């Protein structure tokens, strides 16, 4: 039954042929568990995406209601505390695994030609994840979030020449305020995920095309 559905879908979209290598591709002999860090990071990313979609059902991005809605998620929504904790911790562990993955790729010299572009795609992923972490930190709209964002955005003011302009751009005004919250919310749930999926798509397809580098 499932086989029939898969076959019909494949006749329509022909996705099987280009993705045949997903579960049966050639890999170097000397693989070890350090090659799993990238995959583990991706699992954390997908957990963040799914739990983030679930949180967005209840979260209200407004200066007056944001904190209240977070309390509701924690206290009133069925399993809401779990979903919120999963989102927070998977995001935290995601960054750890990306760092491990980067170290692994660096130590094994897997960034060398022909994989230079994939190193760049990975670096972009790290930047996007850090940006997502920074913008997501403001969303609970409590004292810690507020002051962390005051400090974080004011760092942009130290850029020579365009510093004040950068701060205005980040905050959407002179102070951290409701406009900042909506700006960060938009970045966190729309802009950054869109670019993340584009970069990750490139990242994985380059791995598929080039194979895993041969180890030390």
């Amino acid at each position, binding site marked *: 039954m499932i086989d029939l559905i898969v076959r019909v879908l494949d006749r329509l979209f022909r996705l099987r042929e280009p993705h045949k290598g997903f579960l049966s591709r050639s890999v*170097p002999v000397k693989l070890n568990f350090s090659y799993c860090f990238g995959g583990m990071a991706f699992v954390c990313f997908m957990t963040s995406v799914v739990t983030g979609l679930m949180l967005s059902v209840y979260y209200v991005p407004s200066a007056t209601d944001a*904190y209240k809605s977070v309390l509701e998620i924690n206290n*009133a*929504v*069925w399993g809401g505390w779990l979903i919120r904790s999963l989102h927070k911790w998977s995001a935290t562990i995601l960054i750890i695994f990306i760092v491990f993955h980067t170290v692994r790729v660096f130590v094994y010299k897997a960034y060398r030609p022909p994989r230079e572009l994939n190193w760049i795609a990975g670096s972009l992923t790290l930047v996007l994840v850090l940006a997502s972490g920074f913008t997501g930190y403001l969303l609970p709209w409590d004292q810690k979030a507020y002051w962390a964002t005051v400090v974080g955005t004011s760092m942009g003011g130290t850029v020579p020449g365009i510093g004040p302009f950068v701060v205005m751009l980040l905050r959407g005004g002179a102070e951290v305020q409701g406009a900042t919250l909506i700006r960060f919310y938009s970045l966190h749930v729309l802009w950054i995920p869109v670019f993340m999926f584009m970069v990750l798509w490139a990242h994985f397809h380059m791995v598929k095309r080039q194979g895993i580098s041969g180890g030390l």
Partner: protein
Amino acid sequence: MLRTQRNKGHEGRRDFLSALVKASLAVLGLGGLAGLPYFYPFSTGKEGALEFVRVFDEYSLPRRGVKKVDFTFRDQSFRVYLSNANGKIIALSPTCTHLGCQVRWNPFKNEFDCPCHGSAFDITGKVIGGPAPRPLTRLPYKIVNGDFYIGVRT
């Protein structure tokens, strides 16, 4: 250089691993169904009915200026500021309307100051400075038979 594991004799293992991956994806998908109650609308819980608590008799009300009143009711502690601007008593909640810090009455400047982000309110609770978007919340009260009652929600 790049020796690969596409050797004879590994098909069984490959099939097993590929089945394992598909099975875990299926388990994950079915397990996700267990999360459906998450999307069911939640009840915010019944908000406590408004109840009037006797604080003191009406002669203890401030003749002018502001008086801080702390009292407990059903194991919850409350703080209310009673202000008398021009002969009319106003009961004000000390919770700042900006981010919920507790404001304090500053008798030297004749204003309520918020310690967090510098919001300031005059004796009637009106915003006179800082980021607060609304005046301080006024609480209902009543005077019955010479006793002063404040309305609270538990």
